[in-house]
């Protein structure tokens, strides 16, 4: 397994980066790439490659890939597709192994009929020259540990979420939206047409990588589904894998001669893959991010899969709708026993408060003791209740004009403090509901930051948290069911 770590280290932590396609006048995509990695903290050598310019963006330029002073760990190539095979062939011939990873951003290859031959030439040239090829038809890599980013985003600390994306644009969305939600990445590689390096290999890397806790993949077509299946099955979901699959048609074989053939759509295969390997299949980008976030934040409990959920917060209707939604997802919001209800009743909370489960506390209740009452309620639930997960929801809008701003601060502080007191007692998820009003959004952002830093995943709505919990349950059940096999 360590071989794969070694093999892909130059990609995730390149000491040298060559950039092909930057213009001496600036303004081209590769120029932006150079600017981004310099601004965002890349510390290794950058080698612009240019046939005539002595210098690009203030950096010494080299005529060809073979001319760089040190071998190239990672080459970012964004020039017209037609000239790339010859370029790779030349450096491979002159200095075999000089380039470790070549990522071809350019398109016009296997994704169009007339580019299929060109893609074959590209692969042949890369293999002959001893380099691994990423792409073509992709956007780049985002690797916090290497300080390299193709997106206009500074890679921050090295996180635990490893991503493979067949789509470059969606890769950008995953980074930007993910970071905004508190996801920290261990890496994100856009793989485009996967002419050489396959998603399977990158998943294997993430499985072996001690930094990575959860793996996400956006995939449109599995060129080698068999290998993906065998690799995922052998891994027995040792790390959660979340798959967002594009193009899941229900269509069976076009010319099926059997019942079975006519029923076997792509959708069925991916559902089967998910059932047999424990990977979590999601339908939307939001679910993808929601699910990655829960696995980043919370440790799965295979021995006790998530089943009983406690809801606590303000908003009666919200609680009722969430209870229905969670039931559809296979999660039980079960009313408390007397052992929990009695001490909650002894708190003598104001009328209008429901202390069964869901625990529904209007703002008037939550503002008691300047918001610190939440700690007492949570304390009782944690110490006596039967729960695998607790979803706390605050409708920030409902506090506006009714409480002093510090009430919400105290409420948040009390809530987060309780978590430290009962580590591992139950999965804790926070739902911060708002209405888009800028001041509230800003407070929500600040609360979210605090919570995520403490390992509490934060969701926008109850349903989002529900889907994430159902994914956690799916993973836990799978691992539990295969524990002795």
């Amino acid at each position, binding site marked *: 397994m360590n071989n794969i770590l070694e093999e892909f280290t130059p990609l995730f932590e390149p000491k040298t980066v060559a950039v092909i396609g930057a213009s001496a006048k600036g303004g081209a995509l590769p120029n932006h790439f150079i600017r981004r990695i310099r601004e965002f903290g890349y510390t290794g050598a950058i080698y612009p490659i240019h046939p005539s310019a002595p210098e690009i963006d203030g950096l010494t330029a080299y005529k060809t890939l073979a001319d760089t002073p040190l071998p190239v760990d990672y080459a970012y190539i964004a020039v017209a597709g037609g000239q790339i095979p010859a370029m790779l062939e030349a450096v491979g011939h002159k200095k075999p192994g000089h380039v470790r990873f070549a990522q071809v951003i350019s398109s016009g290859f296997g994704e169009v009929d007339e580019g299929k031959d060109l893609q074959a030439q590209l692969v042949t040239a890369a293999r002959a020259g001893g380099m691994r090829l990423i792409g073509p038809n992709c956007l780049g890599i985002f690797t916090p540990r290497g300080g390299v980013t193709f997106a206009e985003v500074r890679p921050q600390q090295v996180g635990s979420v490893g991503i493979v994306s067949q789509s470059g644009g969606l890769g950008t969305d995953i980074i930007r939206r993910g970071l905004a939600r508190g996801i920290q990445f261990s890496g994100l590689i856009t793989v485009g047409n996967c002419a050489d390096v396959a998603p399977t290999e990158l998943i294997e890397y993430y499985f072996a990588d001690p930094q990575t806790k959860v793996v996400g993949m956006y995939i449109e077509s599995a060129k080698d589904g068999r290998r993906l299946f065998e690799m995922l099955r052998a891994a027995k979901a040792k790390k959660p894998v979340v798959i967002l699959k594009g193009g899941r048609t229900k269509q069976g074989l076009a010319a099926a001669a059997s019942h079975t053939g006519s029923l076997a759509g792509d959708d069925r295969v991916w559902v089967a*893959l998910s059932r047999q390997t424990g990977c979590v299949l999601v339908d939307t980008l939001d679910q993808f991010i929601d699910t990655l976030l829960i696995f980043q934040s919370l440790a799965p409990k295979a021995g006790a899969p998530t089943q009983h959920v406690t809801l606590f917060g303000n908003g009666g209707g919200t609680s009722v709708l969430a209870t229905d939604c969670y039931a559809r997802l296979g999660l039980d919001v079960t009313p408390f026993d007397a052992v929990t209800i009695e001490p909650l009743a002894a708190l003598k909370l104001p009328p209008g408060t429901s202390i069964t489960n869901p625990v529904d506390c209007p703002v008037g209740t939550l503002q008691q003791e300047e918001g610190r009452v939440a700690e007492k309620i949570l304390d009782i639930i944690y110490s006596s209740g039967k729960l695998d997960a607790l979803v706390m929801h605050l409708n920030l809008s409902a506090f506006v004009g009714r409480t002093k701003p510090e009430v919400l601060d105290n409420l948040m502080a009390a809530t987060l403090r309780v978590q430290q007191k009962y580590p591992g007692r139950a999965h804790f998820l926070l739902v911060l509901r708002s209405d888009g009003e800028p001041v509230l959004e800003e407070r929500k952002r600040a609360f979210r930051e605090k919570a995520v830093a403490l390992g509490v995943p934060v969701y926008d709505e109850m349903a989002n948290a529900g889907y994430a919990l159902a994914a956690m349950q799916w993973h836990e059940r799978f691992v539990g*069911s295969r524990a002795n096999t």
Partner: protein
Amino acid sequence: MNAQELIAGARAQQRAALDEPSGKSLLASYGIAVPASRVVKNASEVDAVFSGVKPPVVVKIMSPDILHKSDAGGVKVGLKSAAEVKDAINTMAAAPAIKGARIDGYLIEEMAPSGQEMVIGGVRDAQFGPLVMVGLGGIFVEVLADVSFRICPITRIDAQEMLADLKGAAILDGARGRTAVSREAIIDVLLKVGGEDGLLMRYANDIAEADINPLIVSATGAVAVDARFILSAEHE
């Protein structure tokens, strides 16, 4: 003939599919129960073989040209004597949808005891290789598409979960006053078809599609009453 020879034989005759007796021999060679049967070329051969099967029997047309035997009038059930079988064969041979077809012969087969009809199938996916499917028979598969797929090879847990995934799974346990049928018998067939040593894995390059429809399951066992194996185009 063993399984390899059955497939090679059909290939040699440039057939796109195994005929029904060959398909059942293939299943039998994997230890899957099939009804006792005899094959005749025409009605005149019936008397010589009839004592080898226990009536009532079913007669089915064998023709590479006829995909849907029942629709073509090529299936007759509940026949109790050699005379009834001969009548059925003569009637079939004259049926409009059969008259012009190539006829390999007629399959005379013992009727399976009644039970829950199931479908077990296989199909080769271009990316993932062989898949195995299970569903409840009749309208469950045809109208409701209540089926469950897995990628081969499946394990025993996979097979159990496949049955549990069916929306109509409760029927297996005897819903609405019916007798419960043996899940173990279905799982056994699923493993023989789609398991590690199953026929779909062994003949992954030869079998493009397969239907065992119906598999009739009782409280104690399962019998494959019809089987169709579509061969992949050679050197695909």
